[in-house]
């Protein structure tokens, strides 16, 4: 393999794959980046056997082939090199040479054939047909942002540790996540035609965190999300991120969604968020209970922690129902409000003090957040 590539381009690509490279692995090859030169492009690949990333990099390939080398070290070297064109070349068995101007480095390489497959091949099972959907990266990023936080960090409940993905009969894409105490659902227009062919899939947290990073500073580029049997592959421009799906079924969440949407209070997002944030100061990690007391057009939010003290905040609200007192985990409230946009008007649907509450933004009924109440004395 031999190719010439601009420093900035290589640095950018190496940076993108760093996140996936396994840091603590005792399998040395996983700390390496696979550099493949074929025809006109060079692709960089890394995997930790659960998620994999492949990044196309603009380069002039003089000789096709592949090498691997320590991803971190290569990144550090390239970062320090002057902004010039540099040459990557395999030099003899098990070595790769990096040169730029008068600098020359020789780094150890594994046999590229030993490098684990980055984008696992499509399942041999014929039933596992790949399905895919194209949607703006911004939308996909938003969907991940608004669901991932509610997934369960508990290792023993694997099917809740990721985000559930399904196609809706309307052609919309739906993502659902829950940790057993709260549930976030978001739907976005995706124009899915073959809804029946869409399998149910649970995307892993680790992969979604990488995906979110990838989509973070996205303006309007198209992304493509595909499901192949056991893996999901996200393509955005020259980057391809694959992740293994979580085994098992997502619980039937439909029965948790409150049917009755009669009584609700409305308030501006910021006002409520900052009130709850202030109140949470006077709570402890173990007890995050916040009491909501709704009377006429006023809502009193309060906390009371015996060892610390108590706090009250009063808010003017639009009350479209009777008076009610209910308790919630304050952290669950701030977490959802944090991912919602500024300036939204929040509707909180409440039935009674023991039924779950449903939180929606008036401007966006396609996002729902269901939260179990707490008994607060």
């Amino acid at each position: 393999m031999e190719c010439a590539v601009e420093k900035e381009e290589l640095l950018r690509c190496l940076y993108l794959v760093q996140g996936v490279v396994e840091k603590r692995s005792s399998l040395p090859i996983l700390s390496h980046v696979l550099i493949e030169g074929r025809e006109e492009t060079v692709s960089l690949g890394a995997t930790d056997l659960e998620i994999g990333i492949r990044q196309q990099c603009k380069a002039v390939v003089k000789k096709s082939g592949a090498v691997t080398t320590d991803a971190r070290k290569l990144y550090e070297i390239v970062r320090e090199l002057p902004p010039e064109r540099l040459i990557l070349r395999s030099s003899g068995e098990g070595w790769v040479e990096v040169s730029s101007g008068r600098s020359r480095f020789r780094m150890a390489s594994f046999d590229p054939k030993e490098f684990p497959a980055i984008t696992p091949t499509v399942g041999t099972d014929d039933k596992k047909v790949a399905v895919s959907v194209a949607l703006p990266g911004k939308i996909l990023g938003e969907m991940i942002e608004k669901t991932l936080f509610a997934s369960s960090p508990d290792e023993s409940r694997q099917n809740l540790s990721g985000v559930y993905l399904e196609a809706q009969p309307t052609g919309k894409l739906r993502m659902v996540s829950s940790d057993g105490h709260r549930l976030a659902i978001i739907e976005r227009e995706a124009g899915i035609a073959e809804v029946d062919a869409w399998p149910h899939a649970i995307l892993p947290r680790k992969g979604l965190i990488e995906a979110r990073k990838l989509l973070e500073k996205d303006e309007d580029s198209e992304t493509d999300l595909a499901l192949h049997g056991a893996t999901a592959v996200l393509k955005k421009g020259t980057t391809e991120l694959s992740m293994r799906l979580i085994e098992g079924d997502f619980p039937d969440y439909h029965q948790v969604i409150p049917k009755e949407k009669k009584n609700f209070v409305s308030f501006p997002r910021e006002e409520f968020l900052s009130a709850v944030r202030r109140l949470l100061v006077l709570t402890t990690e173990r007890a995050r209970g916040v009491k909501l007391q709704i009377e006429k057009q006023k809502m009193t939010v309060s906390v009371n922690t015996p060892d610390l003290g108590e706090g009250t905040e009063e808010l003017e609200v639009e009350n479209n129902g009777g008076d009610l007192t209910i308790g919630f985990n304050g952290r669950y409230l701030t977490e959802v409000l944090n991912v919602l946009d500024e300036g939204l008007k929040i509707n909180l649907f409440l039935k009674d003090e023991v039924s779950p509450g449903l939180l929606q933004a008036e401007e966006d009924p396609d996002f729902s957040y269901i939260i179990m109440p707490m008994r607060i004395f």
Partner: protein
Amino acid sequence: MSSRILRPTPHVPRNMYAMLFDSIHGQDQALATLRQALASNRLAHAYLFIGPTGVGKKTTALALMRALLCRERPQEGCGICSACASVTAGTHPDMAMVAPEVGKRSISIDQVRELQRILSLRPVLGGKKIAVVDDAHLLTPQAQSALLKLVEEPSGDALLMLLTVNAATLSRPLLSRCQQVRFSLLASEVVEAQLLRDYDKDAATAHALALHSRGSLGRAVTLDPELFTEERKYVEEELHKLPSASFSELSRFAEWLVADRVKKSKAQVEAGEERPTGNRLELVLSWYEEVLRCVVLGREGIVRHQENAAVMSQRAAALGVEGALRQLTLVYDTIQALGRNANRQLAVEDLLLQLARE
């Protein structure tokens, strides 16, 4: 938590773990059980392989893995295709191996949790997920409980293999949920044949190594023949003059015997410089085994220490069956005690004193 990974035993040649069913010898019963289950597609979901070190437990586990994951020759494994090669390299996405982390003497609950997480992902290539827990006797009680949950409710099509030299430390519920497969010591002819065929040893070395392998191919492969011969000579000399040795000589010999297991620095362990556990005391054990054999079978019974046959038969005559047996038991008990955190130097000095008194 880097538990996914097979921690390659540093001194074991890689090809030992690249074997297919056909090249594993001397474990006919264990292999028959597994291959039959494999052929009729009735593999248990959890196995416990019990047997001494170096007789083929991990080799068999990996061979079974290949047989299940290979795409060229299902049920057998081809050893060449990318799936088989990645099993050998430990990079197959549908496999996971757990062993004590470098420098640790137990398998923690975190490692089992990590295993649980890996097994919760859908299989990518083979349609089956396979996990191996090596040295399962080193699982902490908490780790065993966590593992129990995994054995009871595996997610999807998962196969779990626990490998151990001693099942006594495993909890009853865990034991009862695994199908047990026993691995026996290998006959020295089997070890010798394998050394000749797969490990490029010449006939004389293979013969000598096999004689001293104590039924373990793993040990035969890791023994350094030259160093071993040197150490054996020294032990023989010392044992020869044992009855007339002074205490300071005994003490020095004891020090030498236990020095083999001194704790190495972490860096050395990681660099694979740790000496194989070819316990020097086992040379002493070997000597007394031969003495007993000589008592019972006469000079023909001596196979390992033939150059010392004269000394040995002299000693045999003096001891008689009971005496030889008693001494052998002493050595054996000391080795056992050392495995249970006895004070090494003291235990061995005591042993030598008792042996000298006879």
